[in-house]
């Protein structure tokens, strides 16, 4: 009797399994079977790898990617390690190579770990691009670049100046960066310094590292407010430094006396923005980044995007510039108390 029950439950289990597979298969054939009316005739498969799956930032990128995939007759595989483990990501790239996808778009969490797998993909004739973050040039053909350092530097300084009274903005400002050796941040700082010349009233009094440590960013910001009593603004230019600096201002009770701006996602800074500690959060448009990545993948597979290209037609985004091997998204968005409610990532 007992054996029968076990047998039955096993059969039931197998049927569930079979049901799952049947369902998935139907889905597959349905999607391949519907010819797209767009001008991209042949369906291609693009595998898109985020640094970490399930993070709101990347989920929002994937929404844009999904939209482009629909428009461009692309079957999109959006998958990545939920742990963010780059070794796991390398495993997934190998699987995509075996599956024979057409394009792999990688946001490398660790270019050193992913490099060999990306090279294997290229050796197997698969097109490889990076998006969001770059890897060694010989491991990919193009980078879909979210924003130029100049745009980011300008947006940061302009946002701060706006908070401090526009063109006549005046006061001491300081920068809390990631590590002093961080390449991205140093590029931004370079352009921030240039942009600061436009506002003669603003005086940069220091650049301090926070080494990707929120507690250090907090104490560095505190120290600077003490050392420079007339400090009016802090640029906290890493996603870790930003909340640290905001917390320091909040706890010092200097809201509306010291302003802070930086780069982060709306979700990470939402409470500070709603409380009024932070007036503006700068970031690029993540949905557009995902959208453009798929456009670039499609164009690369079709042969429309080759080295030497200077522009890329990118659907609803219009024509985008290609500089060297970088496809430029361009443009930043500023989240403020007024619009932050519209963004959930």
């Amino acid at each position: 009797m007992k054996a029968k029950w076990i047998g039955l439950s096993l059969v039931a289990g197998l049927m569930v399994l079979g049901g799952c597979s049947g369902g998935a298969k139907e889905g597959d054939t349905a999607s391949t079977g519907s010819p797209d009316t767009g001008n991209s005739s042949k369906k291609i498969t693009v595998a898109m790898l985020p640094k970490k799956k399930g993070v709101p930032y990347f989920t929002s990128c994937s929404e844009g990617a999904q939209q482009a995939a629909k428009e461009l007759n692309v079957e999109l595989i959006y998958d990545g390690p939920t742990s963010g483990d780059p070794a796991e990501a390398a495993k997934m790239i190998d699987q995509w190579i075996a599956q024979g996808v057409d394009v792999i778009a990688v946001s490398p969490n660790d270019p050193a770990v992913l490099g060999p797998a990306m090279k294997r993909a290229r050796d197997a004739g698969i097109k490889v691009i990076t998006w969001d973050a770059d890897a060694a040039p010989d491991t990919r053909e193009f980078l879909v670049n979210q924003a130029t350092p100049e745009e980011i530097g300008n947006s940061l300084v302009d946002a701060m100046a706006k908070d401090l009274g526009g063109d006549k903005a005046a006061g001491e400002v300081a920068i809390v960066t990631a590590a002093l050796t961080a390449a991205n941040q140093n590029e931004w700082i370079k352009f921030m310094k240039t942009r600061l010349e436009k506002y003669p009233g603003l005086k940069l009094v220091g650049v301090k590292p926070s080494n990707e440590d929120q507690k250090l960013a907090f104490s560095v910001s505190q120290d600077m407010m003490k050392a420079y009593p007339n400090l009016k603004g802090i640029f906290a230019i890493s996603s870790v430094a930003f909340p640290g600096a905001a917390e320091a201002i909040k706890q010092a009770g200097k809201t509306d006396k010291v302003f802070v701006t930086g780069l982060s996602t709306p979700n990470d800074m939402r409470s500070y923005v709603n409380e009024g500690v932070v007036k503006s959060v700068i970031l690029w448009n993540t949905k557009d980044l995902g959208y453009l990545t798929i456009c670039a993948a499609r164009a690369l597979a079709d042969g429309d995007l080759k080295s030497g290209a200077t522009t890329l037609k990118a659907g609803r985004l219009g024509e985008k510039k290609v500089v060297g091997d970088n496809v430029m998204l361009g443009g930043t968005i500023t989240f403020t108390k007024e619009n932050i409610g519209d963004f959930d990532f």
Partner: protein
Amino acid sequence: MKAFLRSREAVLILLLIALLLMAWLMEPRFVTIRSQMLLASHLWELAIVAIPMLLIIMIGGIDLSIGAMVALCGVVLGLLFERGISPFIGALVAIAAGGFLGMSNGWFIAKLRVHPLIVTLATMAAFRGIAEGISLARPISGYPDTFQTLSQGKMVGIPYPVFVFALIVLSAWFVLAKARFGRWIVAIGTEENVARFSGIPVARVKMILYTLCGAICGIAAVLLVARNNTAKADLGMGLELEAITAVVLGGASIDGGKGKVLGVALGLILIHETRQFVSWHWKQNELNLIVLGALLIVTLLVERVLSQTRAFKMPTTA
């Protein structure tokens, strides 16, 4: 023959054939040599640490610290390389360090007679913590290509790690099937006190096995670092659970005394193929996490059904 059909190995082979058949129907490309070669490249570190885990489980022990030992050995290799020491020498030091870590596990277990679950639970946290501390949790990368060939290079079309695995498997099989040491392992696992009174050097056997396990974790760490081109303190995270699952799936008794190398090898292949197929077909990496548990349950159910039908038939034929 009849006995074999009722064994765990037969169940695993049955499941494997069913899986590959299903895979072949649903995703023909999955069941090609090229795909299988590509997918297999990430299996070997788990495969080689599963074998010492089998021997340890067979004496009624357990080693939860293997993932942490892999991390610490990898970080040792990385830090030496960072100081300008050849990664090949670093690799030897890492393997020696692994042996030392395993030996310290063995010392607590064999000499102080602390339960292995508690000892290795503690060292699992401690080794991982040390790895994070001495590396400041940074990734250390940039190894020369010659070092990376350790895991990516091939001889007659077969990647080097496969040879390492084959060597470890064959030695383990030989020891269990032919050597006196193998009989000791079974005796200790079956009834430790009886083994002790019959003159088997129980403590020494334990020391040797845990030390060996550590050294093999060192080898796995070297292969992992060479393949990922990075040493980092989160290396081998969760490896212990995967290894234990493979061993138990392979038919070893968690109480000790029973286990087969062939079973573990089949268990490994089944875990690997199931995982790869599931993420291949459903394209959701997180499904990997439930595969381990589901596999174990399905295997136990199938075995239960097979043995129950036999038990059910017996009275009618008798």
